């Protein structure tokens, strides 16, 4: 019977009208990423202010997209950047190539390279997307491109106001979707 199937389909479709909308009124309202979301990188520092990065280029070697370019140089007693012998003289990540796999972070022996949850990486030129060392090292704050009126955390239960004209009622995530702690080591 074709007709009952059509009616069933129409019922399925009309049910969506009464459901909450998944859309969030970006950029006025943003969904906060999960804590372990893989966004843009930062280069960490030691508590004493020295850079953790030792310019070993293991991240560049691990990168499957060939997005990282590192040139190491020797520390001198007068100009010391990192505790070891070497430091990264040039450190660039090309975000037009980066696939946000996180292999570089896993490869880093000193835990200098970390990933943030920042995902708003856009620009008008190719040059803008090549982040240099002074942008990546954490003294420089991460700058948003637009102002944010409202942030919605991923596990937020309450109802929030939508963007103009939208009818977003809730941006709750299902509990299963939250990152779970892995068993065993780690």
């Amino acid at each position: 019977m074709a007709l009952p199937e059509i009616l069933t389909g129409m019922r399925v479709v009309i049910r969506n009208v009464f459901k909450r909308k998944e859309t969030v009124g970006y950029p006025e309202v943003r969904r906060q990423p999960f804590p372990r979301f893989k966004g843009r990188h930062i280069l960490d520092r030691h508590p004493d202010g020295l850079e953790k990065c030792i310019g070993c280029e293991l991240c560049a070697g691990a990168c499957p997209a060939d997005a990282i370019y590192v040139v190491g140089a020797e520390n001198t007693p007068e100009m010391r950047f990192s505790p070891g012998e070497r430091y990264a003289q040039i450190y660039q990540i090309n975000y037009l190539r980066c696939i946000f796999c996180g292999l570089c972070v896993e490869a880093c022996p000193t835990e200098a390279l970390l990933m943030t949850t920042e995902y708003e990486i856009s620009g008008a030129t190719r040059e803008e997307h090549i982040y240099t060392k002074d942008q990546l090292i954490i003294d420089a704050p991460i700058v948003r491109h637009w102002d944010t009126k409202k942030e919605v955390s991923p596990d937020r239960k309450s109802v929030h106001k939508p963007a103009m004209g939208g009818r977003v009622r809730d941006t709750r995530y299902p509990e299963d979707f939250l990152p779970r702690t892995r068993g065993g080591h780690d």
Partner: protein
Amino acid sequence: MSGLIDAIGGATVVIALVKVVVVFLALMLVTIFVVYAERKVLADMQARVGPNRWGPYGILQTLADGIKLFFKEDFRPRYADRWTYALAPVMAMVPSFLAFAVVPIGDHITIGDRRVDFIVSDLNIGILYFLAMGSLGVYGVVLAGWASGSKYPLLGGIRSGAQMISYEIALGLSLVPIVIATNSLSTVEIVAAQSEQIQNVDFFDGIPILEQVAHFFEFVPNWNIWSQWPAFFIFLIAGIAETNRAPFDLPEAETELVAGYHTEYSGIRFAIFFLGEYIHVVAISAIAVTLFFGGWDGPAPDFLPWAWPMVWFLVKTGIFVYLFVWLRATLPRLRYDRLMWLGWKRLIPAALVWIMVTAAVNTDEVTRGVRLAIFGALGLLILIWVGRGDPRLLPATTPKKEVSSGAS
């Protein structure tokens, strides 16, 4: 003032002009809202928000799109036939507007000693005129496909032509029972016939409870839908096919034909096609309301008694436009041979059978109860026959799997 009116040609001409201008402007406005409503409803049905940036609740989105289309480059392909290419969008749009001339959008008012009907023209062949205008729109589509000088528009145009021929027959035949029942082709008279109360409800008289139930329904208006719902069913399907909308949007099937007949159109010419299609949707909805759902008929309080019929008409038409969008959100596009199968092997025979049934039963000798019973039984049969789907598809359903009890 009166000198000016006389110079134009008397009050009749002035009233006719005013009606035409008002209906034209109203249709343009309605199109803006229908396009907006379609996008919003479609978004609703897909759990999205839809346009919400421009104006409160995004209501000016269509206006913005229209302005954008106005200022876009009007590109004409090198191998396009120059004049036909320019003419085709207009050919597609104008008949949709013209079809509205026979739609009664309200009752009448009396200005001075002059009765003004809320209809552009009460033609005594109203339904025929509507059918003619509805099928004229296909010329625009076919010419657009041919004049573009490109293969995809050509295929879209040919499809549209074939589809229109197939479904125009069913559309016309589905309206014949209405004409038989009302004895008139004029839309005004059809609406007037429907606005009476249901009479002849004495079929159950003498049976204690059924009698009261039957008389309780005396307040129900005598709309054609009660007895003619199979005709309405056929009309609705054929009407959707005639407006080239999903699931019958083969002429512009984007998965196969890029954009079908308007592939090569851009800017304001494309906007005109767009406009024509939406007006056509509104026109089909309006005619469905007029012929089957009592037109402007509805309860009219004493406050502004001439405005209420228009409100009812708008509400009913709006429900139909919503149904159009609902179907678009639900149904996938038909395959071409299925489309032809449905049109020729189901809708046309069903419409013919229904005409015979109506002609045989719709006499004064048959009481209303018997008539409705026969209508209902035969209508149900036709509905099942049409709705059963293609029998060639039945063997293709998944056979039941034998359940094994696992490894043990």
